[in-house]
């Protein structure tokens, strides 16, 4: 075997061809991963570095000027803080709702107390297939301003006056959170159901023998066993929340009154593409990157320290 390799190596040296090169065992893995390396360099690393460089520039067609920290100084303005606070509120609300609700519903769906569980699981999943734009079209129509709109009819049952949903800060936020919850609930339920499938049945049986009730079992077995999947769901929901733009775009394509629906990514879009201020937009992007970086670190260390405490 060794002999053969040696002889082929020799013949290769004498008759070196491109084909041999690509077939050699050393090179093959690199050929396989080359699409990733090219895409990493061209479509990730280069834009990442260029994004930071751009954030120190004013970019006009054919003319780029270095302006130091000026873009970053400009970021500290009320509109940015509005975008930041909107996004933060949105992240907190969606994270809380999209963790607790699916966890409870998954536990229900996984229990022996539910009929037709497969049908329900599929129905709950279908919203995830819908484009946010299409979903937004429906939500706009349901939450119309007219007195006869579905939402206003429903709140009317409770004696509430018809509302202009898209024009108030609180109701505007409600619409965005509702749209997001509607779309992702089913997916998060599936995550939790996958987590529940890993909980050994014996734990519940043992607890039942000790006379534990349903709530006790949930608190002392289900919750702790679901911790890893909960950390995962919380992480993707937070990051997804900071990336949010579409939910805001469908309700206010031309910008929201008083910026009630402005998000950080929306601000990047507004400044970078609508105002054509690429340098400033890039600077907001860098700030968003830092925010997400800090949250990821916090997240990792938080779940890490919790592990040590156990």
């Amino acid at each position, binding site marked *: 075997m060794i002999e053969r390799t040696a002889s082929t190596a020799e013949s290769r040296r004498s008759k070196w061809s491109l084909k041999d090169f690509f077939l050699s065992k050393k090179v093959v893995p690199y050929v*396989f991963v080359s699409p990733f390396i090219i895409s990493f360099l061209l479509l990730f690393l280069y834009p990442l570095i260029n994004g930071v460089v751009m954030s120190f520039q004013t970019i006009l067609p054919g003319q780029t000027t270095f302006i130091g920290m000026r873009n970053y100084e400009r970021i500290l303005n009320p509109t940015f803080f509005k975008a930041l606070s909107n996004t933060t509120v949105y992240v907190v609300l969606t994270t809380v709702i999209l963790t607790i609700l699916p966890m409870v519903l998954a536990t229900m769906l996984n229990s022996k107390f539910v009929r037709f569980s497969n049908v329900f699981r599929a129905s709950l999943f279908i919203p995830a297939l819908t484009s946010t734009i299409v979903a937004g079209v429906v939500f706009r129509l349901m939450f119309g301003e007219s007195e006869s709109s579905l939402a206003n009819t429903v709140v009317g049952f409770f004696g509430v006056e018809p509302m202009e949903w898209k024009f108030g800060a609180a109701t505007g936020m409600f619409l965005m959170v509702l749209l997001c919850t509607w779309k992702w609930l089913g997916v998060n339920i599936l995550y939790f159901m996958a987590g529940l499938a890993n909980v050994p049945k014996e734990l519940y049986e043992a607890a039942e023998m000790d006379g534990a009730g349903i709530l006790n079992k949930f608190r002392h077995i289900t919750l702790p066993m679901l911790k890893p999947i909960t950390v995962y769901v919380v992480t993707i929901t937070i990051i997804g929340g900071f990336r949010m733009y579409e939910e805001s775009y469908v309700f206010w394509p031309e910008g929201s009154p008083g910026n009630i629906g402005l998000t950080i990514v929306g601000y990047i879009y507004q400044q970078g593409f609508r105002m054509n201020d690429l340098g400033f937009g890039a600077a907001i992007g860098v700030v968003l990157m830092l925010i997400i970086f800090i949250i990821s670190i916090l997240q990792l260390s938080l779940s890490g320290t919790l592990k040590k405490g156990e």
Partner: protein
Amino acid sequence: MLARDKLLTTIVTVVIALVAILALFPLFSLMLSSLRPSSELMRNGITLSVPFDQLNLNNYTYIFTEAGNYWSWYMNSIIISAATIILCLFFSSMVGYALAVYNFKGNRFIFILVLLILMVPFEILMLPLYQLMIGLQMIDTYLAVILPMMVAPIAVFFFRQYASGLPKDLMESARMDGCTEYGIFFRIMAPLMLPSFAAMAILQGLSSWNNFLWPLVVLRSNTMFTLPVGLATLLTPYGNNYDILIAGSVMTILPVVILFLFFQRYFIEGLTVGGVKG
């Protein structure tokens, strides 16, 4: 005990059924609305009481006969999604496979890079990528939309996990028979990875079909728009395009829902990738 269980079953089933109805209701209303005259829909929005006597298929007749650019959007979405699926699956499976089966210098480093990209939201790179597309003169082309999706880190991750579970002795015996490493992948291992291809085709296809922000940024002319971008242009306060908007929205989600009914398992697998190892 039994009576209590029965009561509990009823309560839990009713609660879940209510949530399921709430989940399906918006899509049901959308379909119902697409049958309403667009002027009436524009005036009243979606209402609790449905004007059954006014329902008709006029919006669909309109969209199939003279709907402006709607069918170009549809074609663009099909072309872009199909190209993304084919290219992304081809490249990502190669990379994921190599990371799983070969021991080579840099393997771990590359895998860490994959995870790193997975963590960084695309939106952060949007502006510099847009600059790059201008530099490459790709603005307003299919390629601009497809290029950033060509090697998806999530797919690489998934294929790597899947390929590490494949039997390695098959590779050995194929090598004995004189099969090249490429032959081993394309003829022997890739066919074994078929279920993972199905799940990733669905994930990439769906995210491409529904992708909004990036196509919005790089596509300029109305005839190049994808469905979500095109439909979003109809979101005007005047509601003068409701016929195309509503019927067009139904036609946008219909193929996806039909595919879902047939390939449920792969949809669920594809859309919950990250949780597999969570």
